[in-house]
């Protein structure tokens, strides 16, 4: 807990978050991909998380 509090203090001391030009340019490139245009099908994302939930549902304690 002490380490967590220290980490939080360190993070707060970093000041306002700034996003680098490189990062923002990378975000724009990702947005511009054909798979991220209007009308793109994103069923695979929903299926992936549904699959993860189903996996957890089947779990049971062995001991």
């Amino acid at each position: 807990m002490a380490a967590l509090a220290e980490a939080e203090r360190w993070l707060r001391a970093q000041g306002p978050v700034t996003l680098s030009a490189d990062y923002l340019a990378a975000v724009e490139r990702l947005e511009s991909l054909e798979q991220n245009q209007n009308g793109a099908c994103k069923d695979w994302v929903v299926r992936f998380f549904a699959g993860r939930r189903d996996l957890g549902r089947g779990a049971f304690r062995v001991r």
Partner: protein
Amino acid sequence: MSVLGSLFDGLNRRGVRYVVIGVWAINLYAQRPDQLFATQDCDALLPLDPVNLLTGWEVCEEHGLELFVGAEPLDRPRDRLLADRVVSRRATQRAASGSELQVDFTLEMSGFTFHEVWSERRTFRIEGVDVPVARLSQIVRSKAAAGREKDRLFLATHADALRDLLRRHEG
């Protein structure tokens, strides 16, 4: 159709304006499963419009979702008066179906108005339903503006993931 897909469909049919934001929206821009981030809920930004909000609640109830503000059930009666109060307090409401689905209706997005997010939205298809999603650039800028510890950590992780993603995509 999943409960979430059905909810989006219901919201669209009733003309509820909303835009999916947050990590769930960020995941929709990913290219592969290893680029996805774990998240417990789906966040939707709604305008400061009590009528729109009230209709959203009705859709949630029609889909068997329970509504909460914080840990408490959303007050009843769920009427215009209540919607006005929720809007004035900018309170986030959670629509939940047990542990399977949690959708947060939020009325604020750091650094952006609803109009700004709505006007730049992308529309993705999920289970045959058009789902309005915030621009990735707006979501990350909002996280930076919010400046919470979890946002800082997320942005640092996302930057690494993005570099890797684009390196693979661009060969």
